[in-house]
């Protein structure tokens, strides 16, 4: 090595980190490097591997292969305790503090060492808390209970803990997601302060303007691999977006076969204060797949929950087949012909301890059992039909939901909602955590349903899926619909709309 200009060794180096979850390759050989005194932004679409990378750095996950070099020592994997000892701290979007304890108690719990029998020096504890809070520029009383603090104040307490622990590496995961503009500025000045003190900051954000305002370098992840590390000064918004999405949408998706028919769903200025959804306007037609794209937290699931009556709308109008309706509960939604296949099928979809047949008929008891007693024959016939139609791989209608693979569970969940014979089907992340084969089967099913005249709203964080499947694409951002784009729009344009960058359109 030629030592001309001696660069200090990086604080943290990651070499060839890979991580698989089941069949999903979350990270494939990522290299990453963090220098002292830099803010290094991590950028990528939903599911590009940012969270996995962070979890490897904080020791929450161990990489399958690869090494982590911190302060000159190579590790095969970290544990949360080891990461802490090495001076790695993470500030999450939702601070992980104890709400019922005071600020000083929270700081003390993190930083004080010693056995359970030691005597607490309350004076020293308070003095340290005051000092740390001052260093992050927080005007917070040390004896305030954490639950009385605002979200940004709690983040500052987290940062105070990190500084108090002597953290050399601070990871910030979307720290500004819930902050106002002024609070953001305050946070930025803390981050700059950290940088000036030689701390390395890994900064994750979907807001490109923040990256330009704060970061020295940026690493872009795509499909679990790094597509390059660049100096921020050499990039602009459209070149970043291009890096994030820069792939061909391959012909993985079945082609559209139907022409949209009559209008099924009409939304006018729909809003729901409680869930942060506001002024939504769009229409969905018979036989149409309307994709909803956007970043995590943009309000897509929230909108679905409004349409399904879980958090009923408090503003605007919904019309179904031209008739104005109100949806006050999921039960009403089902009666009206709206079906919602929820995002988290393990939690709210398929009941794992229930047989497949019972899972499939759960939403249609009133229809198939009009006399209140169960008709097992009828249930079984219906289940067998769905198992055949949707090609559910299972031992039979009596097999428990929990015995199926993710993709097949999703089909059971789908069957439950198709059994309600809906007019409008809302699919929330239908292929999340599903292997590739089942994924394309589910795509074919969705296409077939649309062809048969169903109106479909497809919510997905998988951008190629939205682009490949949708006849039209609505893009949501911060609780409202920011654009409705035709099918076949390029990924860069959709991404730009999701990020709120109008300039991004030029990159198409």
């Amino acid at each position, binding site marked *: 090595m030629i030592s001309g200009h001696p660069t200090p060794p990086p604080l943290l180096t990651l070499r060839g980190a890979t991580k698989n979850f089941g069949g999903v390759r979350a990270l494939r050989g990522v290299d990453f490097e963090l220098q002292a005194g830099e803010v290094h932004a991590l950028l990528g679409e939903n599911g590009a591997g940012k969270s996995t990378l962070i979890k490897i750095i904080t020791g929450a996950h161990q990489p399958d292969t690869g090494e982590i070099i911190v302060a000159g020592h190579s590790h095969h994997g970290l544990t949360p305790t080891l990461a802490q000892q090495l001076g790695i701290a993470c500030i999450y979007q939702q601070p992980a503090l104890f709400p019922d304890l005071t600020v000083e108690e929270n700081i003390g719990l993190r930083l004080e060492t010693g056995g359970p029998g030691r005597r607490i020096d309350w004076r020293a504890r308070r003095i340290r808390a005051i000092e740390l809070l001052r260093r992050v520029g927080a005007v917070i009383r040390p004896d305030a209970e954490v639950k009385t603090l605002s979200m940004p104040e709690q983040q500052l307490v987290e940062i105070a803990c990190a500084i108090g622990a002597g953290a050399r590496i601070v990871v910030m995961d979307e720290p500004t997601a819930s902050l106002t503009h002024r609070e953001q500025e305050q946070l930025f000045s803390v981050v700059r302060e950290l940088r000036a003190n030689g701390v390395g900051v890994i900064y994750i954000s979907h807001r490109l303007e923040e990256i330009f305002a704060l970061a020295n370098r940026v690493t872009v992840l795509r499909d679990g691999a790094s597509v390059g590390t660049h100096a921020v000064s050499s990039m602009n918004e459209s070149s970043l977006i291009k890096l994030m999405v820069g792939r061909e949408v391959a012909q993985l998706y079945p082609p559209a076969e139907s022409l949209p028919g009559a209008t099924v769903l009409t939304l006018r200025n729909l809003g729901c204060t409680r869930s942060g959804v506001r002024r939504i306007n769009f229409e969905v037609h018979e036989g149409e797949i309307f994709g909803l794209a956007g970043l995590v937290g943009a309000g897509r699931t929230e909108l679905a929950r409004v349409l399904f009556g879980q958090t009923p709308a408090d503003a605007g109008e919904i019309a179904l087949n031209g008739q104005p309706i109100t949806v006050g509960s999921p039960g009403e939604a089902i009666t009206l012909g709206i079906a919602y296949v929820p995002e988290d099928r393990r939690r709210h*979809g*398929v009941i794992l301890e229930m047989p497949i047949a019972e899972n499939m008929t*759960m939403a249609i008891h009133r229809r198939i*059992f009009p006399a209140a*007693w169960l008709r097992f024959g009828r249930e079984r016939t219906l289940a067998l039909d769905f198992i055949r139609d949707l090609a559910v791989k299972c031992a039979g209608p009596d097999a428990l939901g*929990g015995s199926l693979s993710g993709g097949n569970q999703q089909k059971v969940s789908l069957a439950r909602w198709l059994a309600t014979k809906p007019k409008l089907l809302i699919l929330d992340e239908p292929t999340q955590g599903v292997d590739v084969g089942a994924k394309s089967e589910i795509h074919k099913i969705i296409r077939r349903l649309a062809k048969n005249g169903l109106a479909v709203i497809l919510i997905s964080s998988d951008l190629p899926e939205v682009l490949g499947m949708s006849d039209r694409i609505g893009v949501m951002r911060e609780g409202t619909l920011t654009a409705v784009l035709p099918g076949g729009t390029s990924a860069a344009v959709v991404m730009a709309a999701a990020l709120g960058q109008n300039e991004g359109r030029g990159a198409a």
Partner: protein
Amino acid sequence: MSRYFRELSVLGALIVILLGLAVFAPAFFQPQPLLSLVTREAPTLVVACGMALVIITRQIDISVGSQFSVCSVCAGLLAARGWPLALVLPSSIITGALLGAINGALVAGLGLPSIVVTLATMVTLRQGLNLLRQGEFVNLPDNVQWFGQSQSAGQWTLVIVALLFLGALGWSMRHLAVGRWVYAVGTDAEASRLAGLRPQLITYGVFVFLGALTGLAAIMNLVQSPQIQPAVGAGLELKVIAAVVVGGVAISGGRGNLWGGFVGLLLLTCISPALTHLHIEAYWEKAIQGAIILLAVVADGIRQRRVNR
């Protein structure tokens, strides 16, 4: 087979005990004492059925013993005033249902944890009753005992009523839609809500139902004795919860059935006379019951861990 493994293993344990008794203490099987034993437990079985539903919905009601006392005393006072049983019975059921409705409203309506709510109602009802009655017994008129029939006819009536009830409810849980709703709510209330069910209403309903059954059980107990003690029903909650849990109804909700609870109750009921017949000191009874409950819970815990993995 594997689906009913838990129920079958409890049944196996029961059969082992019964066989042991047949060999070592055939006196256990003398018809009249056995009938008396079973009759005493008939009201418990009815309450256990209601408790099973509550536990299947992932709730618990530890106030049933106190509800039972209140129903018994109220019914006893009405009977002592000369009300016919045909009126006392529905009054008792309604009293129980109202008490259950209080628990249900607090648990389902306000979303409070059922263990705390029913602990509070347990103590309140019991102490309120003590305060009002000052430990007084209620003497019942003669025509109430055994429904005014002979003892054995009365005993058979109670046993048959309890078994018919078990059969009807067991069938309903499997064959009526509402039975499946109870399971669905206990397994996953949110998923049930998404499927258009009304978890709160169902939770409320099972508490009211348990209360009503407790009222019915109070009458089934009332007809067995000439007077009502003030402490009647004390400890009933432990017995029925234990029977249901031993019988394989998971305390975490959604799993188990009435048949299992029935076998669990038989198992616990057999222990005390078995000890007597085997000349083991009666002090062991509670310890053995406790050990059986512990075994049942540990078995469920291990099973649950295996499922989660």
